[in-house]
């Protein structure tokens, strides 16, 4: 009975926090919009309804929500053991780039789609995972703060994207910008109507993350280390190993996200992707994860809501000439408020 009441109050306080978060989000954005002299009601309506007014808006939202989901996981899983993986961006770029490298290299072999697509996704998963593992390793072995190492790796990955997109082997000679050749048809993933097929992998990832975290020993170890390091070490959990595994899983998910972007959305590596939408997913992945306080189970919904705001922000810029930066900087303010509320009134809420 006590257990049941505990759950009830947990759900209630979470509802209050998320409710407050949404109200705050809209409030802060409204203030910025009003200060700059735009029509607040129209801006809010555009921001919230663009995703649902047309099938184009909805499919855009789903297209953004999928990579955002993976970027959010990339931060969330290491955050469960209190480490900051700022490298979701870099891991996504590295996973995506390696996918294109392998895809273009194997392209001439003419392998069927059923072999190519899973293989390339695996390349994305593994390379993203290994790229993050590097940061986990530097922490476990040399005690280097992952905030620093993942940020440095981000910039390294960015240069790597640039290197591949401009290299003579992969570059498309007909393009003025650094863009690689297009992947062969058998490497690409299709669409259900306007919804990208990558949604299947997003759903699978959501289920697998749930199962790992709730039903396996590994998930238990990660949760235990996050709650109480000393106790978990006494229990025999290897801290260094847990760090590295958590970073690997986070990076692997980011890498998968990058891979899906390449196979399902772009079909090639575009250098500009790194600085525009790619960077956006990296940043908003962190913010989304902070909103849900590192609770992996709440990630899908939060990522979708964040994606609604992102699509709305693009539309604000297009239709009302409101700079997108307003929405971005409001997000940072909102997350700060949510963290304060949680710190202050939500002790023990996970």
């Amino acid at each position, binding site marked *: 009975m006590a257990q049941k009441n505990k759950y009830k109050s947990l759900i209630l306080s979470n509802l209050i926090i998320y409710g407050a978060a949404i109200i705050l989000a809209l409030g802060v954005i409204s203030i910025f919009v009003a200060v*700059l002299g735009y029509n607040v009601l129209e801006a809010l309506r555009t921001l919230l309804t663009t995703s649902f007014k047309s099938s184009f808006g909805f499919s855009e939202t789903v297209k953004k929500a999928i990579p955002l989901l993976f970027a959010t996981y990339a931060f969330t899983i290491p955050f469960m053991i209190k480490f*900051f993986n*700022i490298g979701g961006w870099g891991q996504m770029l590295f996973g995506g780039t390696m996918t294109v490298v392998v895809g273009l290299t194997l392209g001439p072999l003419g392998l069927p789609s059923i072999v190519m697509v899973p293989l390339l996704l695996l390349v994305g998963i593994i390379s993203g995972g290994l790229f993050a593992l590097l940061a986990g390793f*530097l922490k476990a072995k*040399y*005690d*280097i*703060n992952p*905030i*620093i*190492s993942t*940020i*440095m*790796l981000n*910039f*390294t990955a960015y*240069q*790597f994207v*640039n*290197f591949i997109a*401009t*290299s003579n082997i992969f570059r498309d000679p007909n393009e003025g910008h650094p863009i690689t050749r297009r992947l062969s048809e058998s490497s690409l993933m299709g669409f259900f109507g306007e919804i990208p097929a990558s949604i299947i992998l997003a759903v699978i990832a959501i289920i697998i993350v749930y199962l790992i975290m709730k039903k396996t020993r590994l998930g238990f170890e990660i949760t235990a280390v996050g709650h109480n390091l000393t106790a978990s070490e006494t229990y025999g959990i290897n801290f260094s190993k847990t760090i590295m595994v958590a970073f690997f899983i986070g990076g692997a998910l980011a890498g998968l996200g990058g891979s899906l972007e390449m196979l399902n959305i772009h079909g090639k590596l575009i250098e500009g992707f790194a*600085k525009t939408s790619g960077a956006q997913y990296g*940043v908003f992945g*962190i*913010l989304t994860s*902070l909103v849900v306080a590192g609770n992996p189970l709440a990630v899908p919904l939060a990522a979708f809501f964040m994606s609604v705001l992102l699509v709305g922000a693009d539309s604000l810029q297009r239709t009302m000439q409101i*700079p997108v*930066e*307003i929405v*971005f*900087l409001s*997000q*940072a*303010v909102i*997350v*700060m408020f949510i*963290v*304060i509320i949680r*710190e*202050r009134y939500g002790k023990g809420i996970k």
Partner: protein
Amino acid sequence: MAFITSFISSVMVYTTVYTLASLGILISGRTGVFNVAGEGIMLASASAGFLAAFLSGSWFIGFLAGALMGAFFGLILVFVHETFKVNQFILGICLVIFGSGLSDLIYKLVVGVRLSAPIAPDTPEIIIPLLSKIPVLAGFINQDIIVYFMYGAVIISWWFFYKTKIGLETRAIGENPKAADVVGINVSRRRYLATIIGSSIIGVAGAYLTISITKTYSPDISAGRGFMAIGIAIFASWKPQRAIIGGFIFAFIEVFAFQLQILSDKIPYQFFLMLPFISVLVIMVIYRKHIEFPASVGKPYSRE
């Protein structure tokens, strides 16, 4: 000789950026506030400082605006942390995102899109007679006033932390805030002061990028230097006299990589651009045994 002198001269320009930024980080770090928002502060100050300098026509007002913008960020960081005990790293990350959004936003609002980019007024140079004729040494001293400001800031903060009683007390807060509190030091007030002063120094570093180095604004101008400054502060074991050495090393790598990029066509230039970031990690691995941290850095303190 002339080549070495001019090489050192451009290294010193970037040394100023790195050193000021890491100095700002280590000053607040000494009281236990780990400021990871450097990148966001530099971006916001680069934009605000440039706009102020451009609109007023005065380099000084530009740097003042940059410093004030930095102080504003420092105030948010320390206020939210001290009042609500929110994790400093989370706050720092939020402020980085806030700063990068703010920098583009205010530039767009004030300047908008123009055919030719506006140019900042000149920053005065100080040429010391006679000494400036000596090769190599000339590279260190034939510089604008902000480079001298950096020399001064390093010397003053070294003197403050190691030669004054208040400095010793301030370092004590970083090591053990409870003990400092017991002997009557106002921990919270020191943290406010250190974070605000430190952040405004980071703001000067940001303003220096736009007002003096590029003389114009472009998005994402600090390009990760605010993050590398964290690495330098750690490498320097939070000591001002070592921060300038760290700043020099990374500036050297950056300028050197840039020169190589022009000279060499065998190795793709992207690898030279990666070099500064990879060196941060390599240097931290090599020097990890010599790195000391203020014991309380990053941790909240409340009387309980």
